[in-house]
């Protein structure tokens, strides 16, 4: 941490990386979104509500959510081909599934399945948060009923300073970081995930910082959706 | 290796073959084929017999000198794969497996990507010739085991020929038999300089029909053709490597003529199976 209080990539502790996102990028998916959070690039596609693949999984009164992760072999510095049932990816997929279950109004689509496919194109830290934000955009683009957005943000403790939205270098230096997914309107936390040692009272500060980050992300996502909606409205109006 | 087989050492590798200095390996430079008796357009003699597998509905065994493979056809039988949607047409399922001892380098028991792709090539080459709409809701399974392979191209061609004969032997209604034939383009003749630009000036590559393993090592390109001789229609062309357009069309001509010769051998094998049935009764 330089003396000027700036981080490695020149950001202030409370500053997010640049986020650019667009929706309806894929022709065949019901809903899709492409999100760049700094150098982390993620593509999300939503298919559904459609017929469940395995008859056994069908639930008679609501839709079931299925999340699948796919990492491009070239996404990290050193090329690594991950198999379909790589433990780490399955774990991430289940996190995302749990964070969207309370938000998607599944009761409207009984006996069906909603598939969320996440494709990581480039990794530079904050994979889980980028995927959750992209999945939110893709679900909305697919027109699936949701009670609220789900915005995710990471926060961590780097060299005795609480920072948000850690990049790859900050993540790999043994900092403690927490990822939380939040419903911006109702301020409820649907997912909090931390895997490193952290002092209890520091956690309080990180959580408030992360929720602050989520609000900022919410504005960006919301703006993307509204621009897209206006764009569609104009096209239809003409 | 997996738990379901008798375990061997994790890693075992073929010993390095050290040829004595005076040993002269065959090279195309001296313009004769690896087997001196054969001219460039000669095919290896084909031994083809039906009825090798007692349980199969139709079966065929083919030998081209060193290349040996057996083919079994089961069907039409109910589709076993779960989640199949109702189909008015029959489904063709093909699987080719190289025996572990079939090539110089030992192959694994588990199907590798190359065998999976070969299976797709085979079903693409054979399905146009089978009247699948006469077999609703059922599947035809073609299984091929390569016992020994002397040349990849000739193996694929032999597999197509054997599978087509096995299908006919199984009594399945077909439009025509499908004969398979392969050829390789090999640069012969001494006047070759290594620099790239003068390649064009040297002689065009020679077309060797039905190349064996030794010749395949020097091939610039290869072609495998699946051809219905009586209907004069090509069902599949698999061309790889680099060659001018004229060479390719010339090799397609050669392959078609060769397929007509192979058709006669298939014809003979199937008629023999009629005589065998006569004697058996």
């Amino acid at each position, binding site marked *: 941490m330089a003396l000027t209080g700036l981080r490695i990539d020149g950001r202030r502790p409370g500053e997010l990386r640049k986020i650019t996102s667009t929706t309806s990028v894929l022709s065949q998916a019901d809903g899709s979104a492409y999100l760049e959070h700094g150098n982390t690039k993620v593509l999300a596609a939503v298919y559904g509500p459609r017929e469940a693949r395995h008859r056994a999984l069908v639930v008679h009164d609501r839709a079931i959510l299925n999340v699948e992760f796919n990492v491009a072999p070239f996404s990290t510095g050193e090329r690594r081909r991950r198999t379909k049932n790589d433990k780490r990816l399955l774990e991430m997929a289940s996190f995302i599934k749990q964070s969207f279950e309370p938000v998607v109004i599944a009761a409207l689509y009984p006996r069906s399945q909603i598939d969320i496919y996440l494709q990581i194109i480039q990794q530079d830290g904050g994979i889980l948060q980028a995927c959750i934000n992209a999945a939110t955009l893709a679900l909305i683009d697919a027109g699936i009923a949701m009670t609220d957005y789900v915005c995710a943000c990471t926060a961590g403790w780097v060299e005795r300073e609480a920072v948000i939205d850690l990049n790859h270098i900050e993540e790999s230096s043994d900092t403690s970081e927490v990822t939380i997914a939040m419903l911006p309107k109702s301020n409820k936390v649907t997912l909090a995930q931390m895997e490193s040692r952290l002092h209890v009272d520091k956690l309080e500060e990180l959580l408030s910082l992360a929720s602050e980050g989520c609000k900022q992300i919410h504005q960006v996502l919301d703006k993307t959706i509204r621009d897209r909606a206006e764009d569609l409205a104009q096209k239809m109006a003409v | 290796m*997996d738990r*379901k*087989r*008798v*375990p*061997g*050492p994790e*890693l*075992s*590798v*073929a*010993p*390095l*073959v*050290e*040829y*004595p200095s005076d*040993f002269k390996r065959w090279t195309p430079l001296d313009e004769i084929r690896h087997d001196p008796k054969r001219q460039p357009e000669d095919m290896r003699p084909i031994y083809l017999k039906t009825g*090798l*597998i*007692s*349980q*199969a509905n139709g*079966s065929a065994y083919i030998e081209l000198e*060193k290349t*040996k493979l*057996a*083919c*079994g056809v*089961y069907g039409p*039988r109910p589709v*076993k794969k779960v989640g199949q949607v109702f189909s008015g047409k029959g489904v063709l399922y093909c*699987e080719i*497996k190289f*025996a*572990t*001892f*079939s*090539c*110089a380098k*030992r192959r694994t*028991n588990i199907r590798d990507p190359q065998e999976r792709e070969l299976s797709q090539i085979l079903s693409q080459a054979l399905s146009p010739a089978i009247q699948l709409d006469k077999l609703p809701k059922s599947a035809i*399974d073609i*299984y*091929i*085991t390569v*016992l*020994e*392979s002397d040349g990849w191209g000739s193996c694929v061609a032999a597999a197509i020929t054997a599978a087509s004969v096995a299908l006919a032997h199984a009594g399945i209604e077909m439009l025509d038999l499908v004969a398979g034939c392969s050829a390789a383009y090999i640069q012969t003749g001494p006047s070759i300089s290594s620099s790239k630009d003068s390649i064009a000036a040297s002689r065009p590559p020679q077309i060797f029909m039905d190349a064996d393993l030794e010749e395949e090592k020097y091939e610039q390109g290869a072609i495998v053709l699946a051809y219905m001789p009586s209907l004069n229609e090509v069902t599949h062309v698999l061309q790889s490597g680099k060659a001018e357009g004229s060479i390719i069309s010339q090799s397609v001509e050669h392959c078609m003529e060769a397929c007509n010769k192979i058709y006669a051998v298939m014809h003979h094998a199937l008629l023999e199976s009629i005589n065998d049935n006569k004697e*058996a009764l």
Partner: protein
Amino acid sequence: MSSSTTTTPAAVNGLATSPAFTFSASTFQKLHPTEFFRNFVSQGVRPDGRLLSSFRPTTVHYGVITTANGSAMVRIGGTTVVCGVKAEVAEPKLDSPDQGYLVPNVDLSPICSNTFRPGPPSEQAQVVSESINRVLKESKVLDLKDLCIEEGKAVWALWIDVVCVSYDGNIYDAALASVMAALKNVRIRKPTYEEGVVKVPGGEAADDENSFKLNLARTPLSTSFVLFDTSLTLLTDPNFAEESISQGQISVTIDEQGQLCAISKVGAASSSQTLLKQCVERARKRNEELRSIMNQ
């Protein structure tokens, strides 16, 4: 399927079909296989015309695969198996630095019978592979020390793979015979070992001077029987149909000096001592016959 005989007589014991329902022989065999066989066995003959104790024609061919170090094809009636042995270099186990590996595996792929599905080896394939593996190990067919190239560094690993091309019952006898014939046919080039690399001389002629054969201490061969129906009649060298309706199987493995290598009796039916003696006796006779075929 067995060749069809004329329509079976309507009044068949135990099957009180009224005369109206007569089937063709093949339909009758498909619907009531045990009934169908009982008619034949009660008259001491089998549907394919063999006596209860006769064997199917057996042939053995050596050196059928040139890309393998040793190979053999064995055909017993409708069952055809091809065994190939490939010798590769591997590191020895720590507890046996001068011993090579002998790895037999039988592959019952879907090509040989419509009962096998694609995928990992079926239970039956694993049982046959394991029993051959035990016979090779327990009866010390080959001294693993002969396979040592450089103690502690490099040894030969003989991958013995049996491919079943056509399955018509009695796979164990055919597979074991093919393994023994292939091992007899093995020829490995004499290796030279230099700092971690094993080299073998190339070139055409592989004669006794630049390559060696395996000296097999014993060559066990097996004969199998099945017990049919409640009457426990003994059927030798069962084909696929007989195997699928049998109550139990007995296999007797004997080597060339006539010593017993293995006996396995499997199946629900309990059988008397005399039956086992009868099997061993018949297996001994069959053994000579099989050996003469193999030594041609």
